[in-house]
């Protein structure tokens, strides 16, 4: 069950993710790495308490230490205002419109996914790419978030089983181990 998107919207977003970071010989693509879930989780970050904006610290537990990334930070009132503006938009609420209207991610995704058309999921890959190029502002938005979901910490909902990091030979967060001086200077 998606957190914020409808099932139908999640289906379209999945078809977009499959094209912006496709699976390849190098490894799984964005869909297998859970990127659609990462984006849905961002859009629905305020469904959770604390909101899923900033993972905790100092360690994830992958290299030792506590699995503290899973404990998300609480937001201050100003943090919450900023992130509700960014995700939900200003929605005519005066406290959010001190510099005018703000269009949030939720509106951009809802409209962007709808604009791709009812038939998008069923299109052949080349036709999907053509339509994504025709809606390049929305595609760029999804791609930026897909990069985060693919190569960011898995606690945010993407990078499932570290598929993104494994595909590119990236160690991820390395505290508290770090690297030895020899690994730094003479790897």
């Amino acid at each position, binding site marked *: 069950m998606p957190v914020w998107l409808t099932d139908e919207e999640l289906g379209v977003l999945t078809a977009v993710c499959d094209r912006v970071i496709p699976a390849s010989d190098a490894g799984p693509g964005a869909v297998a790495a859970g990127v659609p879930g990462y984006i849905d989780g961002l859009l629905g970050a305020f469904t959770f308490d604390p909101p899923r904006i900033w993972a905790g610290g100092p360690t994830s537990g992958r290299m030792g230490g506590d699995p503290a990334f899973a404990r998300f*930070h609480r937001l*201050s009132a100003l943090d919450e205002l900023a992130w509700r503006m960014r995700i939900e938009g200003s929605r005519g609420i005066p406290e959010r419109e001190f510099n005018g209207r703000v269009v949030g991610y939720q509106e951009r995704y809802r409209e962007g996914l709808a604009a791709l058309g009812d038939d998008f999921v069923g299109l052949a890959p080349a036709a999907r790419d053509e339509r994504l190029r025709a809606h390049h502002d929305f595609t*760029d938005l999804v791609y930026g978030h897909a990069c985060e979901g693919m190569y960011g910490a898995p606690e945010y909902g993407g990078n499932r089983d570290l598929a993104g990091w494994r595909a590119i030979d990236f160690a991820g967060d390395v505290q508290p181990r770090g690297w030895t001086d020899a690994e730094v200077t003479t790897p």
Partner: protein
Amino acid sequence: MTVDAVIVGSGPGGATAADVLTAAGWTVAIVEKGRNHLLDPEDLTRAASDFSNDEIKFHNRHFLGPDPLVEPRTFRTSEADGDRTFVGEVNSVPSTVGGGGTHADGKVPRFRPDDFRLHSLLGPQPGAEVADWPLDYDELEPYYAEVERSVGVAGADGANPFAGPRSGPFPMPSGAPMFGATRSVAAAEKLGYHPYPAPTAANSVPYDGRPACNNCGFCSFFGCPIHAKGDPVAMLRRTMATGRAELLSETFVARIRVEGRRATGVDLVGPDGAERFLAARHVIVAAGAIETPRLLLLSGLEHPLIGRYFMAHFQTITAGSMPYRTYAERGRAVTHVHDDMIVGDEASRAAAAEAGLPWIRGGLVEHSGAAMPILEAKHYPWGAMHPGLMADSPIRKRLWAFIMQGEDLPYAHNRVDLDPTVRDARGVPVARVTYRPGPHELVASGHFGPRLAEILKEMGAEWTAVTTSPGGGNAESPEAVPESRHNVGTTRMGTDPATSVVDPTGRLHDLDNVVVADSSVFVTSAGYGPTLTLVALAARAAHLLAGTSPGACRPAGLRPGRGSAAACRRWARPRC
């Protein structure tokens, strides 16, 4: 209650002033508009654990603030652009307890003696207001020495042939050289340059109650998860341990209240939005070279030079892709630098003459790579090419680069003022930056960029590319807001109130008890990161206020007078 000093800003400048003043027995209130992620909220003498190796949190989600949606700035290149061309993130330095110290990767070089007397040494530059500083290197040296110990700086004595004289050794030896730097250092030396281990505020050995850096690689724009970095955590912990300091985070200074030639205190807006007055005998402004002039202007101060001479660094980025892995994700982000492009040579003098300029100066050249995969991914196009590019990784795995922190000259047209209509979430006018590089910056960049590319080719680069920030080929068309966070110069220091905003001690010419303790006071930008110099100036300003001398023994976490002999020895002062 009236505090001896209210300090606006908890970054390296404010933290240093707080440390010096509380050690001298003053009571202080440190006011920080950002959140506290640096100190344990249960015990402010201990470090917090909020920082992490998390690219999303630090690079993509504004964890250290300011969030440009609620605290934007505006930008334009000149008045001819109209009110602004951009609203959002402009030259942002973290808005958080610890300020810019939290995100800096900790290169903390001193300036050189020449940097304080450019006008005497080289003469004027058309269109710029080049001037000597009202103090020289020798006067600042004891403060440099003190703050290198309090921040915790690792470096190699005698390694930089161009360095100014030192009264003592670096407090720590240098840390492990990055692999890529071993290659770029060898290539640079072969071409006649003089690279050396960067003076770095990251512990190479356990120091002052903090551990040695373990080379995690999440350094630039990240808070240090183990507090091995010389962010102001040490100074702030020591300050809080005196019992004479209060830290007010998430609290905004709306204005300095002024009566005649004196400030009486500041109006604060707390986390709940409630406003209150805090009375203070002295006001120390350390909000950074953009927020400091903003506050002075919001307070109604009218000196015509407030906000003028804004400088950052005109950055020249010369990158090359190597046929081997550079391992830039391991180590302290930058371990080696060279000064040759500041010092200049026959070729650079010829380039200046050819361009019709009296002289040019480049900047410190940082030897570095690129480490972060989300940042890399966003540089590549979406689609079928993405997985192959990420696996081959010409940027993250194989790039090596030189970033030249090119000296920006002071121009009256580059400035910070209040935007006429854009507001922050509190309803307060935001800072507007008006900035464009001058001929000097462009000519210097155009000369030194290709020479840096020669070093990359000597390393074996398959291709090289030179870019600048801001981009664009000439002064009339810079393409973007500058990337530099080395903001300086907006309350110029000098002896003459007609040509400067603060006096040689950092005090406003117009008010007797308001001192600026950050990089706003810089007269010129030099080609070096500003942190150590602004910290030394803040220490000097605070010592002059308190009537104390640099170098007193102040071990971490201990009240003055109760330090153990072992703790004192770490400060390496003979009389301790």
